[in-house]
Structure formats: structure tokens, C-alpha cells
């Protein structure tokens, strides 16, 4: 475990190491060095299992985080490689493929393309639809996609439901002439 991490830091300039617990570390590697680092981990340091590839959308920071979870069964250790891509407004971030290292990586990459819009050029079948069918909106897992709004616009929930906020409802019932709203409005009026 420690050896793999040291290698990452020395050879690949990895940073932001977080040791979540013994046997599980998170570390950030630069996008250009990521595939080399992963190959090194696989071939030299014994991280022979790719647990998954996934993404996390940090829309506020303008970053799209890719996480490669690598497992070393012999040492019972896991390292998660974070790769921070520059987030693009209209999807289409790009990353090198690793399907040559693990054949099943292409499925995750295909999923990332579909659900996050992160492209992996040269990954086989990356543009084929995987889970969604006939999808014509932005990749749904991106943070700016509002699934509730989409569902309401598309699937029309059953109507006729109303609810009441206890605080507002009680005030309407018990003290209909509440001065609070009046003053607030007035205050705004004076200041403007």
C-alpha cells in the first residue's frame, strides 16, 4: 500500500492524499499522468483489479472528478485515483481510455459517456447507448440536470394534491392580521 502511494507521489506527482482507513486511500493524479500511473499500479504494484470507474460532478468548482478504484488483492489494499477534469458547460470532457488494461473498463467508460458526457475517444463502443434509450436531453447525471423538473414535465404526476405549511396555516387561522408581512413589505418600500 505505502509503496504504491510513494510511487504515485514520487513518479507521478500525485497529491491530496486522504487515508480514509487502513487499506483505503484517495489520491489525485494529474490528467496527463493518470493512465501511466494506473498502468504502473497494475503492472508493478499489484493493483490488478479495477473495482470501478465513476465520476463526481463538482459544478461549483468547474471540475469533473473521475475516480478509478484499484484493488490490490494480495495486500488487501485499495487506492482510488482521482482525476480532476476541467468541467465543460455543455458536457464533452475528454479522458484517455484504459480498456486495454481491463476489458470491462469499456463498459464503465460507455456509461460515463452516456450518464456524464465524459468522452473516452478510442474506447470501443463508447458512443453506443448503454442504459438509456432514445434520450435527447443532457447527460442525466450531470449536476445541472434537474431530474424532478424533468419528471414533472414529462410524466405528469397525478394532480389534485395540496399541502399546508403548519406555521403559515396556523397563523392564518389564529391571527389573520399578522403584522410581520406588512412591515417587511414596508421596509423594502422605504429602502428602495
Amino acid at each position, binding site marked *: 500500500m505505502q509503496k504504491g502511494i510513494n510511487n504515485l507521489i514520487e513518479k507521478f506527482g500525485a497529491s491530496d492524499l486522504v487515508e*480514509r482507513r487502513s487499506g483505503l486511500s*484517495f489520491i489525485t493524479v494529474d490528467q496527463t499522468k493518470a493512465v501511466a500511473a494506473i498502468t504502473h499500479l497494475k503492472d508493478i504494484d499489484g493493483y490488478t483489479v479495477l*473495482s*470501478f470507474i*465513476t465520476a*463526481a460532478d463538482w459544478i461549483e468548482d468547474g471540475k469533473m472528478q473521475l475516480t478509478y478504484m484499484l484493488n490490490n488483492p494480495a495486500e488487501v489494499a485499495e487506492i482510488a485515483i482521482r482525476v480532476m477534469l476541467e468541467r465543460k458547460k455543455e458536457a464533452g470532457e475528454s479522458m484517455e481510455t484504459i480498456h486495454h488494461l481491463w*476489458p470491462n473498463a469499456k463498459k464503465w467508460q460507455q456509461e460515463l459517456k452516456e450518464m456524464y458526457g465524459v468522452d473516452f475517444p478510442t474506447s470501443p463502443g463508447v458512443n453506443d*447507448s448503454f442504459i*438509456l434509450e432514445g434520450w435527447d436531453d443532457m447527460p442525466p447525471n450531470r449536476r445541472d*440536470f434537474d431530474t424532478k423538473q424533468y419528471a414533472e414535465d414529462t410524466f405528469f404526476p397525478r394532480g389534485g394534491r395540496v399541502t399546508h405549511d403548519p406555521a403559515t396555516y396556523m397563523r392564518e387561522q389564529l391571527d389573520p392580521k399578522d403584522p410581520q408581512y406588512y412591515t417587511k413589505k414596508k421596509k423594502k418600500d422605504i429602502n428602495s
Partner: protein
Amino acid sequence: MNEDRSLYPEHDENGKPIIDLESHKFLKLWQGPQHPGITGNMSLELTVSGDEIVESKTHVGYLHRGFEKLLERRLFVQCMPTSIRLCVAEPDPNEYIVSTAVEELGGIEIPDNAKWLRMLSLEMARLQVLLRGVPGQAGTFALGLGYQWGNYLRDLILDSFEELTGGRVYHMYIIPGGVRGNLPEGFKGRMLEKLKLIDEFVVKIDKLIFQNVVFESRAKGLGHIPKEWVDKYGVYGPAARASGVMRDVRKTNPYLNYDQLDFEPHVTTEGDVYARSVVRYNDLQMTVDMIRQILDKMPDGGDIRAQTPNVLHWKIPKGETYVKCESSRGEYGMYFVTDGSDKPRRAHLKGPSYTHANALLDKLLINANIADTAAIMVSLATCPPEIER
């Protein structure tokens, strides 16, 4: 089956089979999503020559509900009812991994009693899956009798779940902070009675399935996974153990109180459907034994939940973790990212079916018989809702 057919049809330089549908030698055949030989709601796009499969492609997405997106809209406690539906057949590992991820990032230590109760529910869940899955393997060869027996016993376990958790299928038992109830009165006794029935069933199954020449001749050599593929394709759990690689999170990364239990997962080297059946058959016996140990070792009542902050606005500091446990299918994990708000930033489920059903299944089905697809799928225990989430 024994002759080397791996070079039929001819392959191009990239190792892809050359298939010309116009030549009338090949046929496209869709198996699923509505097909009795499919585990759950997914489909296989098969290219067959005669009844031999030359190319296979898995299609998923029929059960896609967008869980990972939905969890981003839920408070941490609200994640629970949603996430348990990630895998229908065995919901408890979902409860466990999400709860544990929340606890780990939120800094909550659960009571010891709750740990034992969690183990009990996890093992009971495994038991009910295996009661269906082990004889279900024979069911794919049209031997449905064991399946009928197994389903009855599974129902008895579901009755126990109902007593313990209040739910038959979706238990909603493990919750951030602990669990939702102690053992009801007399639960241990009733459970032990049921385990006795399962002991009898184990013997009967052995006679019906493993002492059965038909099952043996069809399952042996079928869907062979070489040892090297385990790492390469991401094979987990019983399937990996059938290929001679020890993969069991309970043993390698003990969680809860699994280190206090005495168990040894079965490992064999053949790597075919038969070997996988044997491993799961042994798992079944081992699970029964583990439930006995848990019932024996667990404390008699006690605290069930650690006090968490108010769940209605529980904020968890920025962080990320990966929590895993052993489901009946193999390593089952949750990658969980928090950002300091009261909702998760990202929750990604990693289930073994994802790798089993996608790249691996496509590979295994080549040169197999159409009639064997169901057997191979069931032996890998593919669970579609967990693939597409």
C-alpha cells in the same frame, strides 16, 4: 463441446468474429427482456449459427431508475428507502453499505448489539438468496423441483424477516446509526427450527442435484472461467472462488463482527457452472452455520442505535469513502461522496453483476449452446437492477 471451436467462425485480425448475416449462416436472436430464461429484466442479443452462439451482447437499462441521481436529491436518512431497492433479491447489503458510508463519513460508532443484528440480517438475506439460487441453477436445466422446495424455505426466512424487520422483501432494517429493532420474543428458537428444515433440505438437494447425472453432464465444463480472468474481468465472490481465487470480503476485509465468527469459504478450481454451483451450495451450508453462530454469540438485547444528529438536517463534512461488503454474488460496494451539505454529492453502487453480466457474460457465451445461456447467467448470479441502477 469438447472440440476446440474457439476459432469458429473465422476471426479478423482484431479478434472479432467475421459475421455476415446475409450469408444465411447466422441468425440474430434476441433473448429477453421478456423471456423465461433470463434472470430479471435484461436481454441478450445473440448471433447464432445453428444452436451455437458466435457472438453475444448484453443489453441492460430496462430497470434503470436513475438511483444515483435520485440519491443526490435525498437526505441521508431518506437515501435508505431508495437505496434498498437497488437490488431487489437481496436488499440488505444495500442497507448496510449506505448506512455504513453515512456513519463513516459522519463519524458515528454503532452499538455492538446493532453490529450483531446487522450481521444476522445480512446472513439471513444471503440465505434466502441461496435457497432460491442453488436449486435455481438446476432449474435452468429444467429440473424445477428443487426450486419449488427452495422457494418454500425462502418464504420461511422471509417470514422471519417480517418478524424481525416488519418487511417481507424490503426490510428497511439497517439505518444510519444502527438497526430498527431488537429480536422479537422467541425469534431465536423459531429461527433454529427453520435452520433444521434447511439442514434437511441441504441433504435432499445434494441427492437431487449434485448426485444427478443429468446436471453433472450438462454443468461440467460449461461456462469455464480461467483463473487469469478473475482479475482481468473482475470476477467476485462465489464465481471467483470456483475458479480457485479466494474472494470474500468477510474474510479479507472483515467488517462488523465477522472476525469473531468461525467460517472458511469453499474454494475450488474447476471454474465451470458445476464448480460455481458447488461453491454456492457450500456457501448455503456455511451461511446456516454462521447464523447459528451469530444467534449463539450475540448479546441478549441492548442498544440498537447510536444517537445521530437530527436526521432532518444532518450535514456531513466533505469527504469520500468506499464501503463494501460480501453479498451472495460477491463484493458489493458503495462509493460515497459528501460535500458538507445534508445530501450526498455522489453515490455510486459497485455490484458484481456489472462486470459479470457485461464483459464476462459476452465472453462466456461464445460457443455455448442457446439452451445454456440461462445456466451460465444464473451461475454468475446476474442481477439486472444492480447493473443499471
